[in-house]
């Protein structure tokens, strides 16, 4: 039975959803603004016979996850920006070793120690692969507590299906906000497809090894081609995005996560004044919904990009839209949370094309 409606904090929602999605191993290191997640799981994991570990660092934690994942267990780690920077080596290894795991980043302001306010400044790190090598990490961007729950399930499924680390990219606001959630049913772990690649001890079969070092030149070449095929398949099958109020829009607002929520209220404010804008919300940031955005942007003719960084997702929008529409940009660096009215001013200015709030991007 799905749970009754519960009012829960975003970080805790991810913890409960992970347990219900069959996660039985969590390792992490404290960092604000997501401490509630390890705190929640420190009590919850033992209840379902799973293991919780507070690692001595983020580096240790991601590698504990690597170890658990190699044995076929659904495993997760979480952190916030500076901590996720430290996990990149482990993520790169898991991409190369084709190990499934879920990594949560509740982004805060950077660079360096920055501050703990909501931020979107790790978009590049998440979508371009923050570690070494030619790999991709599917990235899911929830925009509320219910979606945090649902996408946590999705993340574990994508991870297992394609044998890849998957990232959920939220921010400090997603980690701290409380909203009512209905959790999906807990899955029956035994019903998951078997992982014939997992290390279980070689009794009755030949020993297996999992590795990313391929000294033979052809072997590494072919391994990378194989990874690319997998990434192409993910791009074809796993794209996710959402739209709202686009039918009659004169301006298409592109925003993900928390900024998409603020943008939606800004659009409502404008509509109350008779000004028509619509929303395009990428849910997978990699793969980016390039073609759907391209089509809609070309139809509407004007695009306004709003994110909590000085222009990272903007690159993907420029690649999708090119010269098919005018592009305007409003970037807010970590620390200050703009209100819907602030965003509404940007949208109005973009519709007029006067560039008074934000700036015009020359593609």
């Amino acid at each position: 039975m799905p749970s009754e409606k519960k009012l829960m904090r975003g970080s805790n929602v991810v913890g409960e959803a992970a347990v219900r999605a069959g996660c039985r191993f969590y390792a992490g290191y404290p960092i604000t603004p997501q401490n509630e997640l390890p705190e929640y799981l420190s009590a919850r994991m033992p209840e379902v016979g799973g293991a919780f570990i507070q690692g001595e660092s983020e580096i240790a934690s991601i590698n504990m996850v690597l170890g658990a994942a190699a044995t076929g267990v659904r495993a997760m780690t979480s952190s916030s920006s500076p901590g996720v920077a430290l996990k990149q080596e482990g993520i790169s290894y898991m991409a190369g070793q084709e190990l499934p795991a879920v990594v949560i980043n509740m982004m805060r302001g950077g660079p360096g120690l920055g501050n703990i306010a909501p931020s979107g400044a790790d978009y590049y790190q998440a979508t371009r692969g923050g570690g070494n090598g030619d790999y991709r990490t599917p990235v899911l961007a929830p925009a509320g507590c219910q979606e945090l729950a649902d996408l946590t399930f999705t993340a574990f499924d994508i991870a297992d299906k394609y044998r890849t680390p998957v990232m959920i990219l939220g921010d400090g606001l997603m980690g701290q906000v409380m909203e009512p959630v209905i959790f999906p049913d807990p899955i029956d772990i035994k019903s998951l497809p078997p992982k014939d690649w997992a290390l279980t001890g070689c009794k009755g079969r030949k020993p297996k090894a999992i590795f990313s070092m391929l000294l033979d030149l052809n072997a590494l070449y072919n391994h990378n081609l194989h990874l690319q095929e997998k990434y192409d398949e993910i791009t074809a099958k796993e794209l996710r995005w959402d739209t709202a109020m686009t039918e009659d829009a004169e301006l298409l607002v592109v925003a993900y996560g928390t900024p998409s929520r603020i943008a939606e209220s800004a659009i409502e404010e404008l509509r109350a004044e008779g000004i028509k804008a619509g929303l395009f919300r990428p849910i997978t940031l990699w793969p980016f919904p390039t073609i759907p955005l391209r089509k809609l942007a070309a139809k509407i003719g004007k695009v306004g990009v709003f994110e909590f960084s000085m222009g990272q997702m903007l690159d993907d929008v420029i690649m999708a839209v090119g010269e098919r529409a005018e592009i305007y940009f409003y970037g807010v660096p970590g620390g200050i949370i703009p209100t819907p009215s602030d965003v509404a001013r940007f949208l109005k200015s973009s519709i007029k094309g006067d560039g008074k709030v934000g700036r015009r991007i020359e593609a």
Partner: protein
Amino acid sequence: MSAEAAFKKIFGRPESLKENYTHYCPGCGHSIAHRLVAECLDELGLRENTIGVPPVGCAVLAYNYFNFDMIEAPHGRALAVATGIKRTNPDKFVLTYQGDGDLAAIGTAETIHAANRGEKISAIFINNAIYGMTGGQMAPTTLLGQEATTAPGGRDSSLHGNPIDISAMIAVSNGVVYVERCSLASLKQIRQAKKAIKKCFQVQLDKLGFGLVELLSPCPTNWKLSPKEAWAWVNEVMVKVYPLGVIKDTTGYEDKK
């Protein structure tokens, strides 16, 4: 007689401390430790020649309070950063100031290797058995049975391991010359802590090797105790796991006397 002549100033702010209010909670050991470090630097005339490395932890803003040059290090990396400074500036006085999460969890490798290289650096190690800044998670030094937000029901050795004694661990290394553990929970101990810090600084001035002073330090906020109860907890409970006194001393200072 003028007022100046009639009254002798016997207590004031050390020059090595800025005139700022700290953000530390009432009863926190950090403020006492800051003062002791500052007094020792003043007395040794080191302030203007010092480069300090604060931690990521409650003392992350130490550069707002210490009145000498300081460089922020990533969480746990203070002793690596300090190594870079000291090796390029051997005539500078270099100190780190680190919490237990910083020095004994995420920074364990940097701590052990800086100590083992015998870096001529002084480390001030604040052991409050908890993660203060992030709100009370388990630290590597948390005592068995002690409550922490990530150790519900208290630290359990079978799940969370045992309290780590990093001071004793580094003491076995030849590069380490002087290690002493003191507490900030009684006037007598605070005076002893000052002596230890000053001696540790002397070790660096004499280019003998690595020195570390561990300070058992109350965190009333996350221990959920009043400042008075927190002092009692240090003196009655914490010292049983972390006994006070000299852990290693190969300075030969006493012998000379």
